[in-house]
């Protein structure tokens, strides 16, 4: 007799737990198809800022083989990029980690001005005006951040803006330098 009431109750509780778990998940956060695979080959022109010397310069991921680096996809039209930019300034200014900023579907003039106003932490700024590199990366939009290892494989990908907590939790483990920087900050 008891089981008549117990069974629906158990079913209800299971359902509640399952749905409750579902609420904590972020459906926008999707696993990248690229994790563990080599970063797609591309060769893109460099954004012409006042710091650029060679106008014919192209960037290819191969030039950073042997180094572990960060790829940040940004654009001047993207509000979240504004939010995360101070963190990249910090990484660019206080570490020796190679930082590449892919300027995604932007207008050259706007991009140059945006960097002039907010600081340019990037070592290299390839441009992707058509969005073709974006498709090869499996990009949803800007901003996105990737960690690429010494063999040119994608170790990590985050879609959306980063914050200090995310760097500490998910990106710093790949870089001892970042770990030192962000643990120090926490302590002070």
């Amino acid at each position, binding site marked *: 007799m008891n089981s008549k009431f117990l069974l629906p109750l158990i079913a209800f509780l299971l359902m509640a737990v399952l749905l409750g778990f579902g609420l904590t998940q972020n459906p926008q956060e999707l696993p990248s198809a*690229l994790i563990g695979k080599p970063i797609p080959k591309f060769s893109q022109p460099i954004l012409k800022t006042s710091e650029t010397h060679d106008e014919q310069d192209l960037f290819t991921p191969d030039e950073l083989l042997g180094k572990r680096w960060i790829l940040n996809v940004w654009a001047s039209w993207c509000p979240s990029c504004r939010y995360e930019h101070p963190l990249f300034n910090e990484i660019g200014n206080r570490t020796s980690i190679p930082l590449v900023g892919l300027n995604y579907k932007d207008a050259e003039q706007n991009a140059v001005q945006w960097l002039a106003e907010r600081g340019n932490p990037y070592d290299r700024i390839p441009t992707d005006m058509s*969005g*073709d590199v974006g498709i*090869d990366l*499996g990009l*949803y*939009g800007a901003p996105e951040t990737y960690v690429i290892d010494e063999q040119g494989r994608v170790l990590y990908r985050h879609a959306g803006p980063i914050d200090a907590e995310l760097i500490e939790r998910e990106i710093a483990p790949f870089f001892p330098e970042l770990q030192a920087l962000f643990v120090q900050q926490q302590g002070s």
Partner: protein
Amino acid sequence: MNIRLTLLTALAISAFFITPTSLGVVEVNQFETVEEEKRYKELLEELRCPKCQNQNLLDSDAPIAKDLRRRTRSLIEEGKSNEEVKSYMLDRYGDFVLYKPRFNAATALLWLGPFILLAIVVIVLLRRIKNKTEEELLKPSQSDDEATRIKVRNLMSNSPDLTQDSGDAKP
């Protein structure tokens, strides 16, 4: 009558407004053959927009959907088959990009889940039906008889002991 007429007119008029939106937001594209045009539409319906997750590429107005439509178009023009175009997108965006995801370890539960649930329900139901029919066949007819027999005997003999002996009522 008047109301019905107004409703019909409203419906007829609204039909004109519905049609353009239901055609989606796809750019005007000219393919060389009707076949290619048809495949393009098919693919856009099956490919999902990564940014706006509940829309396919045909419906979505997001910039990334526009780019993916352009890429789909150029892949078709290069002579790629539907399967090749889907693999191309799958390599870049993962299972998520197909509204009909392929069967693999990660999507197995998605594909088999409903059948597993159905099997569980069928098994539970069959058991219940079997138990019930057994109960119905055995209990009511025999036990009712038994009960009356015991009652009658009790009345006749005034012996309450017999009521406890319900399993085997033969004297």
